[in-house]
């Protein structure tokens, strides 16, 4: 199983990196997160029962790493909140990007996995350790919320 996890990590490192980066918006943090995520995945590789879920499982680990880094940074930011965070990415639809970033992290994750990674709801549910219906209702609620947020502007 370790070999399979390793192959998945090295073959698809780009998609894991992008996802992590979409949380951190910062290259150094994203690199830290993927390295730590890869470390944890290999460490725990033997606990996976079914090779079919390797990718789902790695996604979960990577998302947790990314969110962990966000939390750490957030604590840091409160010390000097006047400091504007540098962003390497540049989305054309800034309003939408801002609206997405204001969402709860779980909702952000659902949007990213659903639309950017084109993942089926079922897989998203297993990444978030919840059920498909919950993901579906959360997704619709989030879409509504984004719509209202953007209309107000």
């Amino acid at each position, binding site marked *: *199983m*370790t070999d399979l996890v*390793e192959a998945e*990590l*090295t073959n698809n*490192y*780009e998609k*894991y*990196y*992008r996802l992590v*980066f*979409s949380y951190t918006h910062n*290259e150094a943090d*994203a*690199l*830290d997160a*993927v*390295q*730590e*995520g*890869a*470390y*944890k*995945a*290999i*460490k*725990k590789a*033997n*606990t*996976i*029962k079914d090779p079919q879920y390797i990718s789902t499982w790695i996604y979960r680990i990577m998302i*947790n790493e990314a*969110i*962990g880094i966000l*939390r750490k940074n*957030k*604590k840091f930011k409160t010390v000097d909140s006047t400091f504007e965070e540098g962003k390497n*990415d*540049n*989305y*054309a*639809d800034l309003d*939408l*990007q801002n609206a997405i970033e204001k969402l*709860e*992290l*779980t909702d952000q994750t659902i*949007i*990213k996995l659903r*639309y*950017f990674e084109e993942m089926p709801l079922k897989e998203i549910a297993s990444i978030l*350790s*919840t059920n498909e219906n*919950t993901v579906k209702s*959360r997704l619709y*609620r989030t*879409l509504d919320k*984004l*719509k209202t947020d*953007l209309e107000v502007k």
Partner: protein
Amino acid sequence: MENRIENMKKEYQDINVPNEALSRIKQGINTAKNEKKISSFSKQKRIAAGIAAAFAVCIISVNSSPIAANAMSSIPVIGRIFEVITFRDYTLSNGNTSVSVKEPKVQAENSSAAIQVNADSSEYIDDLLAEFEEDCKDFDSDYASLDIDYSVITDTNDYFSLDIAAVDTGASGYEFHRFYTIDKNLDKVVSLIDLFPEGADYITPISDEIIRQMEAGPEGSYFIAENEEDGEGFSKISPEQNFYINEEGCIVICFEEYEVGPGSIGAPKFTIPKDITDAIK
């Protein structure tokens, strides 16, 4: 709306992946592999049947030993003093699978509540062990372990709270707790409802306080439901919510991992200040 998000996808895909990404991933992989090599001195596969047999032997020997039984009865107890001894304590390992169990036995003279806790916790631990064995059979893994341990959280004149913690580092990596609280004056194993006058609404004020504490925490730390119908996230405690009473006599409400927040926050606990519980009538 969905179209606008779809449009963003292209930009998402254009996120520049630096060359370093692959080497950093490889670095993570190699560090983990090296650590594994050191720790896995035995590559021998664990045989589920062997573990099962070892369990049976261990349990029988402790439970049926007259010496052990005598040793337990000779501990002096005065009044409502609660004493906890380790009734079963063993570690088994086979290859990389290991089980470590510390089972408590609460001793208190003429306390039916203590007897009840012992019977219930013993059954609970047996269930956990059986489940773990099943899991081991099901999945082909070199690494799995189950640790069951207990701790006395509170032992005051009025209350006694015991925590039985189980950590399963197999497939899930879950940690779960079961708490027992005894009202010493009534000699009764209490659940939340017993702590308040009959018919009093304790659920709302306690839930409100938990939400207040959740909201005070870092954003996104907890799943809070927007309304009660919302099946997901926290809206209110269950009448039989896991809890214990701390040394100060405050109720501490406990949740399991993933119950009210992402796995990264672990199993959260919320201490409910006395002024809130005192006001419940």
